């Protein structure tokens, strides 16, 4: 019985796979070709952009070293409003940390949007990263430049989900501004941008057009000089 059973699952497994291919054969081939093309094109662009981002972040940290307490940075914890940037080589994504999970919950939540632009809350960063298939997940906080030219992390206002909702309401009230000509991965970084406008009066993508035309979300946000990498935080374990 044991031998027979151990062989049987392979047959079933094949049947399941054949069933899936049978239904979506044409779609599958089209998707594979599209994905390969996209990976090739976007991958080339991403490599260049990633390199420039890393160089930018390094330069930024070094230039501001005299203003930032490195020890404080090393101890940096996730705080509400911290920005999470995730990428997997051909698509990227942006989210925010919601740290109002004090007490019982084990970790801060991650706030992002689905591809329709609706707000979601994920209470398991590990699985969020796994499900997204993100190869890298990096944390950033937004340094606020005060009149004294000191740089301090974030504004005084506490981050909460209600403000994000209200920010989104403003987006929604603007007639489809951000639904037009934008790729599906853009909504989440649009939400991050508008939440920061609403919460801290900071435009994270000042060079981006305000009328909602296509711009290179979320890299425009990532390229903002006020974003500081949280060097010792990661939500990916390997």
């Amino acid at each position, binding site marked *: 019985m044991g031998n027979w059973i151990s062989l049987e699952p392979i047959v*079933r497994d094949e049947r399941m796979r054949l069933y899936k291919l049978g239904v979506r054969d044409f779609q599958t081939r089209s998707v594979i070709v599209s994905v390969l093309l996209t990976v090739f094109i976007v991958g080339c662009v991403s490599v260049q952009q990633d390199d420039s981002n890393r160089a930018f972040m390094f330069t930024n940290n070094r230039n501001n070293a005299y203003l930032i307490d490195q020890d404080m940075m090393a101890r940096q914890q996730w705080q509400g409003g911290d920005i999470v940037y995730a990428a997997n080589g051909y698509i990227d994504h942006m989210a925010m940390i919601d740290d109002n999970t004090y007490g019982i919950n084990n970790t801060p939540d991650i706030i992002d949007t689905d591809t329709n632009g609706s707000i979601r809350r994920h209470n398991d960063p590990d*699985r969020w990263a796994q499900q*997204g298939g993100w190869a890298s997940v990096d944390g950033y906080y937004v340094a606020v430049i005060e009149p004294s030219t000191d740089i301090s992390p974030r504004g005084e206002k506490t981050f909460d989900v209600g403000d994000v909702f209200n920010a989104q309401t403003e987006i929604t009230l603007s007639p489809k501004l951000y639904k037009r000509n934008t790729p599906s991965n853009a909504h989440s970084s649009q939400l991050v941008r508008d939440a920061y406008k609403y919460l801290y009066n900071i435009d994270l993508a000042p060079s981006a057009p305000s009328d909602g035309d296509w711009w290179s979300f979320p890299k425009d946000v990532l390229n903002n000089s006020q974003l500081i990498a949280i060097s010792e935080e990661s939500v990916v374990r390997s």
Partner: protein
Amino acid sequence: MALKVSYSNIFLLVILVCGCEMTDDKLQNTTAYLFSNCKNTFTVSGSSKIYLFEHRHNSVEFDQLAVFDDWSPISAFLDCAANRIIVPYGARKDERNNAGVAIIDLESGSKLEYPAGARGIQGIPLKYNNGLLLGTTLLNQQTLINNPPLYGYLPPGEVYEDPQRQTYRVFAATTYFDLSSAKFTKDLPIDIGYSVIQNNIIYAKQRGAITAIDLDAKTTDVLYESSGKNSSEAINIPLNHLGVFLDADYFFVLNNYSHNVSNNELQGLEANAIYKLVDSGMQKLANYSEDDAVYLLGLNKKLYIFTSAFKVIEYDVETMDVIERTLPSLSRLHNFRIESVGYTEQNFILALNSQNAEIGSKIMLISRDFMHISPATSVELRSISVTTDLAIDTANTRGIRLAKNKNSL
């Protein structure tokens, strides 16, 4: 010529009949013998496959019954009576809107998917009546009429005002998947967080509180509520602790990742100690030897703490006895760590994840009396979780960690 055709036809017909009979026979055997005792079965799932195993009676030896290619970040489990595997899935890779429940029929091997739409699914599935309660990710805005709402928890400080100055709360609804009709039949206005269910009461560990949600009476009792983020006097339960519900009580242990104040430090609490929530406070029950706890189980009045050095600390909540055991055969598995622990009536099931991303995981069984241990079996999985008929997704009950230092992983 006509005769030849006739013989050929008869020959083909015989082959066809035999073939059909063989196929039928196979299916019958599959149904009858795929597993011999449901109580001894367990599924192991994760990043790429779903495995179905069964251990032998009174033994730690186990056999692989089936393996399916699928992405199952949320626990899959065997529905013995219907001879099928139920696979709640969150968004799959690159399909951020794709979540739902898949059902794999063990008789035919076919899989059907029932999408939950853009809501997303997360947390621990709960078996309820003949269905599943599943946490979702999509946030809903609900105008507050009762404050707090009778049904559903409202964390302190989480009442918001919209631009029209209307107060509201946000929550991720719980959705119910009915297994008999294979449909999502209703949404509940409650956020179940990480929970267990007992007598139709959900004990939920959620934002800042532990609540008892009565599904029949549609009421929510707050059993424990942290005193608020801005309270300077309160001692908060640390982030990154390992917690379990045991008979509606909440127990937890701390590890190297636990902290309740800034600078990653613990204030007012000890590492290597077992705590229980009592009267809205944290009571220390016992200390154990200095080691990093990686997994916590609560079973039959006992807590089992699994550590990074492959020790198991057993704490009896009635007698308060502490027994520490070392599992020497596991310590030979270099660069592996315990990722998930499931259990059957006879055995613990350990899922070990490799520190090396190129290497898959391992499964091994330890008898509940710790007298026997099986050899390790390799599985092609990352992000591994074990589910049995008794325990539905034990992977998340340990809590989730955010790594503070990539090099320490």
